[in-house]
């Protein structure tokens, strides 16, 4: 292995040889001042070795350091999980009063969209000291309601999946904008030296609609884009050595490339080469650290049971939750889990009778285990856990062979835990059908502003300039930190 000292000596040797040729050297003064090529670069503007993921100072003291976003892709039905609406049940089958829907647009307006109310068939009860209503679909979540912060009046702008997912992630429905994870790693860097700063995990039968743009870095450099950790094959694309190459050969490769690059650095004075030398070292470390991370079999049986992981080698939302804890433990800044097939329109493949309960079973125990596990590892206070989808579902039903609900953007539920969020409260009140907010609407931009705030970032100041504008996660029309949900 090439130690920092060796690199420094190399540097000095080149420096001297260069000087003896009577040619001034450039990069070296800065390299020598640092004394180490491989040591992590800190957020010093004058630093010669630019590590784009080096930790950066916050705008103001932070309440949280990391984020785990559990994304239920498709739009979970808040009315069958969290929102207890007896009036909706009482008026089941009756048309929704037109006052609610006048001027509104919905997905599938020309085909399957219906205007008859659909009462939930689930049974609801109150849990915890707070008496929070939860349906029978979530027996585990209901046990930890006092640790959670519910927002039942979340509101978004877009009602088709891909644009709405982008909106929830990037504050805009347009492709090519940075996602929240990219913004956060851009703003804060990462505390982890051998894994990417923004990691994405996926479960469910297919990828989320929108694909890689959901964790893209848009107009920010690609250093900040989310890196999907895959459940099959290499956890990171091209992580393993080619078949015939041993670890020793790989080390020799990295060393030789480093030495030759260093010579070129001395020759040309181009600091980018120093960044590249660092990148090779981190890549090599990732080759070891990422497989270690994925090795969940090393966890205790009790932990596996807590999450409900039956086979630690099999991919599942539960295993991804455990991986999320392991990632945060290692200093990874932003972890996002996508679980797909939450689009319960009704019909044979995604309905409220059969498939919503299955999805809930997939995520209920593991989500609540994650919160508890983070807490007992002392990580919850520094980590914001977010649960939600791109939108919710309508109080009106879609009655096909089986029932479902259409996409709904005016009010839906998300929950938060840890990271300085105020536990045991429900923020916002919706009307008798759960159609819209009666009190405290919480727009996605407000939610983003609040998350950034907890991380010590002022959403006004976290900007990047492109095409003549200062782009920000929270858009141009203003957003407010939701103080009421913070401790």
């Amino acid at each position, binding site marked *: 292995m090439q130690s920092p000292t060796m690199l420094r000596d190399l540097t000095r040797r080149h420096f001297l040889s260069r000087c003896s040729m009577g040619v001034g050297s450039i*990069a070296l003064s800065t390299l020598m001042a640092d004394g180490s090529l491989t040591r992590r670069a800190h957020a010093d503007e004058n630093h010669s070795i630019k590590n784009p993921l080096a930790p950066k100072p916050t705008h103001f003291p932070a309440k949280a350091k990391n984020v785990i976003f559990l994304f239920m892709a498709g739009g979970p039905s808040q009315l069958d999980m969290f929102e207890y609406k007896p009036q909706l049940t009482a008026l089941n089958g009756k048309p929704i009063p037109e006052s609610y829907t006048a001027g509104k647009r919905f997905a599938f307006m020309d085909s*399957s969209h219906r205007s008859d109310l659909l009462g939930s068939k689930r049974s609801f009860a109150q849990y915890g000291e707070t008496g929070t209503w939860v349906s029978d679909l979530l027996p585990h979540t209901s046990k930890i309601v006092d640790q959670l912060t519910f927002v039942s009046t979340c509101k978004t702008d877009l009602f088709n999946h891909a644009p709405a997912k982008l909106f929830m992630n990037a504050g805009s429905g347009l492709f090519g904008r940075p996602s929240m994870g990219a913004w956060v790693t851009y703003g804060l860097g990462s505390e982890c030296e051998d894994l990417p700063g923004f990691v994405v995990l996926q479960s469910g039968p297919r990828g989320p*609609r929108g694909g890689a743009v959901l964790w893209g870095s848009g107009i920010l450099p690609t250093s900040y884009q989310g890196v999907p950790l895959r459940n*099959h094959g*290499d956890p990171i694309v091209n992580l393993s050595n*080619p078949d015939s190459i041993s670890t020793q050969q790989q080390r020799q490769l990295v060393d*030789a490339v480093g030495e030759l690059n260093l*010579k070129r650095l001395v020759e040309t004075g181009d600091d980018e080469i120093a960044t590249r030398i660092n*990148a090779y070292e981190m890549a090599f470390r990732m080759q070891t650290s990422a497989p270690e991370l994925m090795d969940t079999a090393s966890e205790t049986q009790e932990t596996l049971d807590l999450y409900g992981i039956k086979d630690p080698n099999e991919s599942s939302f539960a295993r991804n939750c455990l991986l999320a804890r392991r990632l945060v433990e290692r200093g990874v800044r932003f972890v996002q889990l996508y679980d797909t097939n939450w689009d319960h329109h009704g019909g044979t493949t995604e309905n409220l009778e059969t498939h919503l309960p299955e999805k809930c079973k997939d995520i209920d125990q593991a989500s609540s285990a994650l919160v508890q596990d983070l807490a007992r590892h002392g990580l919850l206070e520094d980590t914001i856990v977010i649960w939600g989808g791109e939108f919710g579902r309508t109080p009106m039903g879609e009655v096909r062979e089986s029932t479902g609900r259409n996409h709904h953007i005016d009010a839906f539920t998300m929950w938060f835990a840890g990271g300085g969020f105020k536990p045991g409260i429900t923020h916002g009140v919706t009307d008798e059908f759960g159609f819209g907010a009666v009190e405290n609407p919480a727009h996605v931009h407000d939610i983003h502003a609040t998350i950034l705030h907890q991380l010590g970032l002022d959403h006004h100041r976290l900007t990047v300039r492109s095409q*003549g504008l200062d782009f920000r996660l929270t858009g141009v029309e203003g957003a407010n930190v939701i103080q009421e949900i913070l401790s």
Partner: protein
Amino acid sequence: MIRTVYSLCFFFLAVVATAQEADTSPRLEFNRDVRPILSENCYYCHGNDPKHRMADLRLDVRDEAIAGAAILPGDPASSLVIDRIHSDDTDQLMPPVESNKSLTDAQKETLRRWIAEGAEYQPHWAFAEPKLADAVDLSDTHPIDYFVQSKLHEHGLRPSPPAELHTLIRRLSLDLTGIPPTPAEVDNFVAAAQQDLEPAYDALIERLLSSPHYGEKWARWWLDQARYADSNGYSVDAPRQIWKYRDWVIQALNNDMPFDQFTIEQLAGDLLPHATTDQKIATGFHRNTQINEEGGIDREQFRIDSVFDRVATTGTVWLGLTVGCAQCHDHKFDPIEQREFYQLFAFFNNQDEPTMKVYPADVDPAQLADERNQVRANLSAFAKDHNEELSEWEKALTVEERQALSKGVRQALETSMDKRSPNQLLAMFEVAIDDSATYGEWLARDKQLDVQLNQVPTTLVMQERASPRETHRFINGDFTRPAEEVTESTPSALHPMEFHVSSEQSHDQRPTRLDLAKWIVSPRNPLTARVIMNRVWQQYFGRGIVETENDFGSQGSLPTHPELLDWLALTWVDHEWSLKSMHRAIVKSNTYRQSSINRPEIKEQDPNNYLLARQQRLRLDAELVRDMALSVSGLLSPKIGGPSVFPPLPDGVMGQGQVKRAWNVSAGEDKFRRGMYTFVYRASPPPTLSVFDAPEGFSTCTRRIRSNTPLQSLTLMNDLSFHEFATELTKVIERDGLELAFKRCTSRMPSHDELEILQKLDTLNAARVLINLDETITRE
């Protein structure tokens, strides 16, 4: 990160300005010294947009600033602006605290001095026509060197010595064709240049400019701006065919099509009189927008989104203006009203968006269709003529005879007479009648014609509608909130549109896209030639003369060398918009040919190399990283154009999106094509390209980011394609030795030390090291 660079630019210019004051205290110049301060700190609330205007005061128009007593020329002490920027009262202080903006003491002093000097305004530099610098003798030196060196001289810097000859040929080959020179090409050039440098260099330039790979290299530059990719985008992201457009760009550039024509054909080729197939293909430029095929969507919403994109892209690519900012409100900084955005929108709102079949040049589809009709008529007539004969034969068949017939004929016999296909009839005729050969020939011809008529490549094009759609301004850019109707027109702050009613395709005497395209390439347009030349310059030096290559408006940065930019723009138009002539001009300059090696005095005075005291090392673009490895290993296919190809991908990449897409790896030479031919699904782009910052075609990309990440290292070390290239390179090492293999990658021989490091490795690892070197993937 972009932001940082951007502010540094201002910082630098400010320093320059201050340094100049100390010497001679020349009068302040509004555009250079004052406008950036006002634009960044004041115009948001006191600028062009009446909706955000506070206190009914605007500072972007001199008369209004004076009328509001904000600025009293010659009397800074009484000017409210000066009062307010120095205020101790936070309620009075400008810019307000909550704007997070503040002025430095130097900026405050600049404003004071400028008012004292009379508060002269200037029109925004980019809206004034380019002009040749006064009293400049360009006969002795290359004009580029003249402008660059005068600026260097002002700052006490000297240009760098010429790059070494092997560096120069590698640089030029990569810049003009994207393919490195072979060791033999390097040796030949070095030998010739040592004899007589200039003729050797000229010959090299001409050889590379006439290489068909020139068109490929520069097509990719344009395709970024055209947001080209091979799928429909959004979540469903189905594949599309539009590679004919890509090939059109390659051909147009190889033929050095004048840029005005290049522009007109792409924006309005379908509207040209007797438009050719090629001219229609060219309109694919604006068909590179995404198409949403998700269930439950409002199609009109996404059609309008694509028109928004076309307006914004046209503004960015050709005008260097952030026209898209005016989609929801009047532009806050530049003179573009929201209404004017929708007047531009109207030009792009009158098209159908068909898919066009593209026949080879020697095929006339109308003639083929006629022939096919004739052949089909012949087939029917033949069948009719022999109908009786056939039924008699059928009736006469014994059970044994029937069983002896082929399966095909027996099936035909079981099909009712009027439902028999031509194939079935043929099978029957062959056994039942004597002269069946004619029928067989006609049928074969029919099938051939069908293939020629239908199995041809298609491409997406624009087609003007017979009657235009109504266009309305949308309140807040929301298409569900139409306001007043608008018609086609161009922004009033720019040159007027010359519109001749005679234009035969125009709707009821309204201008069309063709008029818009001609307006863009009008010699009176102050923007387009500058904007495009700036982006050409950016390819050679890593940064434009105007750093904000997509914003020449008041929020953009100022040109570092305004006279040079104007010289480039005017010379280009003078040379009838020939891109090749400008490439020639730029690469012949000493500024281009100087060494990229950094020097202490440059690092100290101009660390970001704005003044160009040296060339710039540039990491190769994503596609060229692949091309480089293919070239050095000897695998590169030189084939130009054609359908996009599917080189091997890491497992699992195509499963990321909503719909899992097939990726059937191309066989033969298509496995080793240049990176620009790799099929790009927008929603799951090939990781080896995106990891090196290739754009995904969601919106126009006028400058690529050059990131430098561990994932790039993993790609070059471990990706199966790069490993295959390295394995192939071992054959070169075994055949020609390490030195020559090194030279294939870097165009130079390794030093003794370098060779020693490589010799310690096994051959495969040595080859891998060569593919992974920073120098290999960098153009120096």
